[in-house]
């Protein structure tokens, strides 16, 4: 047997996901009155996903095996994984900070963290310029010029 292809792994992951989904739907959503209720669609979709992903796992796509289109496969590609993690964390942390320290400071923190930690940039001019420039620029354009609502800190009203 050859090594599991990316399609097989995908099929397996999606099958697990679909199973969990169907169990959750069955246990938490009431069926409602009549033939079609709030549960019908989520349940049907979950089952369909399970069937299709099982098919993908067993038979593949039914076409020629993908000749690994990406030069570097995901496993062992630490740079890519690092950047995925950096992107995920930066957005999540941005969300945490927004309504705590306000839009301007949260943006500055996220920009600095991305440049310094994730990309390893040490050029002071670039670091300072972007860390100050992006938040202030956005604040001016969106908050002041366009009058959009920016998240604020409950503790202080600076910016």
């Amino acid at each position: 047997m050859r090594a599991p292809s990316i399609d097989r792994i995908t099929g397996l992951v999606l099958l697990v996901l679909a199973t969990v989904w169907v169990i959750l739907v069955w246990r938490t959503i009431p069926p409602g009155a009549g033939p079609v209720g709030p549960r019908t669609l989520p349940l049907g979709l979950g089952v369909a996903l399970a069937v299709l992903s099982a098919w993908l796992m067993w038979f593949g796509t039914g076409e020629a095996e993908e000749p690994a289109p990406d030069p570097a496969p995901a496993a062992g590609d630490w740079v890519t994984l690092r950047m995925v993690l950096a992107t995920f964390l930066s957005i999540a942390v941005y969300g945490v900070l927004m309504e705590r320290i306000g839009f301007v400071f949260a943006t500055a923190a996220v920009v600095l963290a991305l440049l310094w930690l994730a990309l390893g940039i040490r050029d002071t001019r670039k670091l300072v310029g972007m860390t100050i420039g992006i938040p202030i620029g956005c604040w001016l354009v969106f908050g002041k010029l366009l009058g959009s609502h920016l998240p604020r800190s409950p503790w202080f009203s600076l910016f």
Partner: protein
Amino acid sequence: MSAMSLKSILAATVITAGAGMTSVVAQTFPAKPVEMTVLFGGTAQTIGQLLADLMSKELGQPLVPVARTGGGGSVGYQHVHSASADGYSIVWNSNSISTNYHGGKINFDYKAFKPIAKISIEVPALAVSASSGWKTVADMVKDIKTSGKKLKIGASGKGSFTHLTTVALLDSLGLAEQTLHVPYDQGKAPVELLAGRIDAALQWPGQFLSHAKAGTINILCVTSNKRVSEAPDVPTCDEAGAKGLNITMWRGLAAPANTPDDVIAKLEAAAKKAVASEAFVKASKTVGFEPAYADRKEFGNEIAADDKQIADLMKKLGLKQ
């Protein structure tokens, strides 16, 4: 230790210190923009924005309407509920506080908020297509009862305010057994009526007025116990046979329960002036709502009474959780 000093530095540099010192806060209130959470789009948003505009002039600081529209209002209530009770976060609320609580969407009820002032009411209207030939509620009731068919009536989804109103109305008309509730998006009721897919619809009169004037839709009654100014010829449902029916959708302002009274008083005063202003009265005629100011005490009583009515209705329908 470091966290403490950071906090004190912040406190020194900022314009206002946090809540807690009631008298100091009240003297300077509002020292920064006040955030008003808006729970819905449509009419709620329009009135809310207008009110915020007018109240800002009275307060001397902007009152910023911020739309938090998820989950039928639950998300917005939750946001204000968990905000600090300093008067800087208030909610543009409505009966939805009761429907959401009794529907099991939020685990706190109207008592989690302190009323500021009642601002306006909107009164749902019952309308039918002109081609049905029904000119009065009695026509409709007679026809349905003799034909034995089901009345297909459109309102918003189950447990929503218009749905509950529909149930109450048809109950008192004796048609409860002979109805089929069709859930619709707010705006679509007139199309469905005109196309003949439903027999009747319960929605805000503003949607029907133009059609009524053009003679394609008949508005049969409004659910309040007083006629509404935008359609003075339309009888109340009470007059038309649904004895004792009085259901209106109120809107008002509220703040988290521990907000100091003097801060509430300042907001109340600003709201009173805004509602009485010419711009507000003029907009009420075109947008389709009735200005209905009530002070915080009266407002509080009304909310409590309304909550009981909604709880009873939902219990009867098996929707209460």
